[in-house]
C-alpha cells in the first residue's frame, strides 16, 4: 500500500468508528461537543502513533508468549505520559475528558493496530498507519461531537448560533449519544452503498 494510502484509509474505508466499530466507549462518552470530540481524538492519535512506532521497533525482540502484556505496558506508558502532559499544559481539557484519558489503554483501536499492523511493519509505516487511523478516529469523533452540539445546544465549536434558544438537551446527554451515532452510521452506510 502506498504511503499516502496508509494515511487516508482510516478516513472512510477502514474508519475505526463507523466501519470497524472500535473504541465505542470514548466515542460515545466524550463527544458532548465538537471541541471535546476533537480533543479526545487527538489524545488517542498521540498514543496511537507513539505506541505503533515503539511496538514496531520492539516487536522482533519480544518473545511470542508475552507479546500482549509487553504491548499493554508500552501503551500504558505512553498513556501516562499523555496524562502528565495534559495536566501540565491543558488542564481544562484534562478535567473534561477525565477518566477516558487513562482508559485509552484499553481502547481496542490501539492494541488492535499494534497486533494487526505495527508488529510486522517498519517504524515509518507504523507511524503513518497510526496517523491514518488516529485521524479517522479524530474525524469521526469531531463529526459526532459537532452533530450532538448542534442538536443539543445549538452551537458549533462553542459558538452559539445567534437568535436561538436551548437545543434538544437529550442529545448532549447519554441517550442522544447512542441515537446520534446510530443515525450517523446509517448515513455512512448509505454513502458507502452508493459508492
Amino acid at each position, binding site marked *: 500500500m502506498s504511503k499516502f494510502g496508509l494515511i487516508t484509509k482510516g478516513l472512510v474505508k477502514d474508519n475505526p468508528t463507523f466501519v470497524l466499530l472500535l473504541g465505542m466507549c470514548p466515542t460515545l462518552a466524550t463527544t*458532548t*461537543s465538537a471541541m*471535546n470530540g476533537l480533543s479526545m481524538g487527538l489524545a488517542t492519535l498521540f498514543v496511537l502513533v507513539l505506541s505503533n512506532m515503539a511496538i514496531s521497533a*520492539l516487536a522482533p*525482540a*519480544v*518473545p511470542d*508468549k*508475552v507479546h500482549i*502484556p*509487553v504491548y499493554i*505496558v*508500552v501503551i*500504558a*506508558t505512553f498513556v*501516562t*505520559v499523555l496524562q*502528565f*502532559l495534559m*495536566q*501540565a*499544559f491543558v*488542564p481544562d481539557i484534562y*478535567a*473534561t475528558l477525565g477518566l477516558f484519558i487513562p482508559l485509552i489503554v484499553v481502547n481496542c483501536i490501539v492494541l488492535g493496530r499494534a497486533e494487526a499492523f505495527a508488529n510486522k511493519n517498519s517504524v515509518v509505516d507504523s507511524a503513518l498507519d497510526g496517523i491514518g487511523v488516529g485521524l479517522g478516529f479524530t474525524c469521526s469523533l469531531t463529526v459526532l461531537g459537532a452533530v450532538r452540539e448542534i442538536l*443539543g*445546544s445549538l452551537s458549533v465549536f462553542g459558538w452559539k448560533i445567534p437568535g436561538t434558544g*436551548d*437545543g434538544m*438537551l437529550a442529545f*448532549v*446527554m447519554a441517550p442522544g449519544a447512542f441515537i446520534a451515532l446510530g443515525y450517523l452510521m446509517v448515513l455512512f452506510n448509505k454513502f458507502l452503498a452508493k459508492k
Partner: protein
Amino acid sequence: MVLCLFGTCLFCSAVLGGVYALTKEPIEQTNAKILQTAVGQVLLRNADGTDIKEGTAILEAPDVLEMDGKSYEYYTQVENDKPVAYAIKSTVVGFGGPLTLMVGISADRKLVLNTSVLAHSETPGLGAKCTSDEKFMSQWKGLQLESTKLEVQKPVKDGIDAITASTITSKAYTSAVANALAAFDKIVAGQTVSENAEEAVLEETNNVEQEVENE
C-alpha cells in the same frame, strides 16, 4: 521470556518516573496559575467591574478556617494594612459531584465581588453552563448582599435566577456562596477575637516586665 516482560516493566517504570519528575513542576505551576486566576477574578474588581489592580494578586499559603466539619481556604486582600476583601474557597455537592467555587466578599459584608468555578462535574450542556452562562454568572458580579437573598427563586423577586433546566446546580452554586458568607462571618469574628487575645498577651508581658523592674 519472563526477563523480557520484567525488563520492559522496569524500563517503562523508569521512563515514567523520569517524565513524572520533569512534568511535576509545570503541573504545580499550572495548578497555582488556575488558583491565581480565580482569586484574581473574584478579588481585584470593583462592583462596577473595573479592575483595581490587574494581575497583582500575590498568593501565599492560604489561611484555613474549619467550620461545620468543612474546611475553607481563604485569601485576604490587604490595602493600607486593612483587609478590604476576602476570597473564600467553598465546596458543595452539585448535581454530578463536588462543585468548588472561589467567592470574593468585600470586608464590609456589603458585596459579593464575584464568583469563579474552580472545579465541577456537572452535566455538559446543562449544569456545566454555570461556567459559561452569561446571564447566570453576571448576577454574582457585585451582588448586593443587603438587598438580595441568597436563594434560587422562580419567578425572581429579590433572589437568584437559575440556569435554565439546571435548578439543582443553581441551588448548589447559591448554597456554596451562602456557605462562603457564613465562613466570612466566622473569619471576621475570629480576627477580632485573636486581636483582643494578642493585646491581652501583650499586656501580660508588660505587667511581668514591670514586676521584674519593681524587684
